[in-house]
């Protein structure tokens, strides 16, 4: 299996090694093409965003207005705050120049003069590594005004690193733009989409780090080559971060459409102690979890995971063995989203708090089976009713974890409830599930 984003070349983070391995050849090739041609090639390659939504990259680029008197911006999303996701830091560390090459090609294609690489604040070390790589690129003439000379073209772009400061929500594209502008990371209402009104009200494209790192090989080797790798509708390789109860956790670059079981058992070395798998979250903590008996035949690409009842997200696979207490897991996930809700929309701000409180009540042994319905009800009232997707991200794990593992959650709750509680819950929900036995 060929590795595109993290090739097996030693010291690739050194610009001389990168140059010796066809470094910046793709940029040279790209700058001879028209911008429409590049966008068309990326579109035809089938490259889809690796940040969660799996949206067609070429199509996204084509949304950028051709004629505008405003400056255009490119924003590279390296916030990587989704629990379970830790792939972009490998790129910052091992292949920063391929990312930079992807950035200058993208800037050229969409006509952006400035690119910001947004890296989460906790990644102090990787911010420094990326900063150093950008400085080297400037020195060697692969960024900034010197590009004109290096490539013999009438185009150049600036690249800046922007360091976040610890907010999950800044991985969301519109809140990331607010964060770059020096504001609180509140998501913006869409439309207008970033391509119309992005950074400082100007046309902006936001791509994930891994997505952009895929661009140079596509230009160099051609879109036909890329489109034939892995799953047809979601081609290329994907970086999967496997964590939790596996023998060899880590990041693995494999073709899209690889079997989930192959990733867990062959690449990550299976579950310690030969235990059975109870639950797998396939794409970072906000994606719907899969039961251990649902894993057979599930392939890791956007379409297949959708059919299996989950989503690819950021490719952060969390594996939980048979002894895992799922109530603890769900409580921890809900605590996270409560902590990270930006507080702008009422359903999310209040709802995430209630999810956590209700789960805590169950944890304290005071839960009833109606609480399970209440949790699903609260989750349903958050989902789709907020400006950004954090609401959905908080709702999905609760909704799907309880539905798919109802038998386990029933064990943690008391089926007898007092009359006042029963009345209160009954009055708030439209559940078809019969009320539990009421305590005399």
């Amino acid at each position, binding site marked *: 299996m060929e590795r595109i984003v993290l090739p097996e070349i030693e010291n690739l983070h050194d610009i001389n090694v990168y140059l010796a391995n066809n470094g910046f050849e793709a940029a040279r090739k790209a700058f001879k093409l028209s911008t429409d041609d590049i966008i068309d090639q990326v579109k035809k390659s089938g490259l889809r965003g690796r940040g969660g939504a799996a949206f067609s990259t070429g199509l996204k680029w084509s949304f950028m207005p051709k004629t505008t008197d405003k400056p255009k911006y490119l924003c590279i999303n390296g916030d990587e705050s989704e629990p379970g996701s830790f792939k972009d830091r490998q790129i910052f560390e091992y292949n920063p120049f391929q990312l930079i090459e992807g950035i200058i090609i993208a800037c050229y294609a969409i006509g952006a003069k400035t690119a910001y690489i947004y890296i*989460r604040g*906790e990644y102090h070390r990787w911010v420094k590594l990326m900063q150093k790589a950008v400085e080297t690129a400037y020195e060697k003439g692969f960024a900034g005004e010197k590009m004109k000379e290096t490539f013999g073209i009438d185009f150049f772009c600036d690249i800046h690193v922007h360091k*976040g*400061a610890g*907010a999950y929500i800044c991985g969301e594209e519109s809140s990331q733009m607010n964060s770059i502008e020096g504001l609180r*990371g509140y998501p913006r209402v869409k439309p207008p989409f970033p391509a119309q009104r992005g950074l400082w009200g100007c046309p902006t494209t936001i791509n994930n780090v891994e997505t952009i790192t895929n661009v140079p090989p596509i230009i160099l080797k051609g879109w036909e080559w890329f489109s034939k790798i892995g799953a047809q509708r979601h081609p290329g390789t994907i970086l999967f971060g496997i964590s939790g109860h596996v023998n060899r956790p880590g990041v693995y670059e494999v073709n899209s459409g690889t079997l989930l079981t192959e990733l867990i058992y062959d690449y990550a070395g299976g579950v310690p102690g030969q235990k059975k798998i109870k639950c797998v979250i396939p794409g970072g*903590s906000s994606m719907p979890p899969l039961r251990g008996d649902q894993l057979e035949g599930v392939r890791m690409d956007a379409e297949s995971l959708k059919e299996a009842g989950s989503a690819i997200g950021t490719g952060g696979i969390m594996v939980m063995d048979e002894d895992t207490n799922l109530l603890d897991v769900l409580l921890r996930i809900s605590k996270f989203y409560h902590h990270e809700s930006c507080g702008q929309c009422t359903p999310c701000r209040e709802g995430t708090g209630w999810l956590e409180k209700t789960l805590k009540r169950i944890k304290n042994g005071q839960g009833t089976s109606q609480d399970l319905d209440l949790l699903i009800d609260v989750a349903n009232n958050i989902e789709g009713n907020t400006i950004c997707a954090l609401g959905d991200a908080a709702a999905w794990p609760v909704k799907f974890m309880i539905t798919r593992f109802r038998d386990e959650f029933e064990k943690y709750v008391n089926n007898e409830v007092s009359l006042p509680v029963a009345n209160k819950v009954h009055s708030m929900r439209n559940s078809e599930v019969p009320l539990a036995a009421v305590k005399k």
Partner: protein
Amino acid sequence: MSFKFTEENLKRIEQSRKKYPTALAAVMDTVYIAQEQNGYISTEVMAEIADVLGIDKVNVLSVVTFYTMYHTKLMGKYHVQVCTNVSCMLRGGYEIWEQVKNKFGLDNMQTSADGKFSVEEVECMGACGFAPMIAVNEDFYENLTKEKVEEILDSLK
């Protein structure tokens, strides 16, 4: 107590300012620089940041109170952060969190009397595949066991 940026830091702020079309955008970098110099962000520090960048004080306050990595009170010389999010939790993150708290006799966001140590339970740090992990100030320590944590904590002088 008034706060003034050092000459060197003023230069760093100027450099950050050049990255963006507006002064407001440089506020996040500037708050980091101020925190590095002063240890934490007080009202005086915020006023100085606003002054240096030529922006409103409320803009500084809104950023400082939104992002969790800016501290409005003095943390320890060694700020020990333990991740307890799912991937770490599955591999013993909470045990390490308890161990760190007990070791210093501190609770979340508390600082020891001598100002040397502070502890924080943090959300996912992006080290899921190398769990469990702790971070001391800016450095990550990954693939930990209780023994290794003990060793790391003992080495902090």
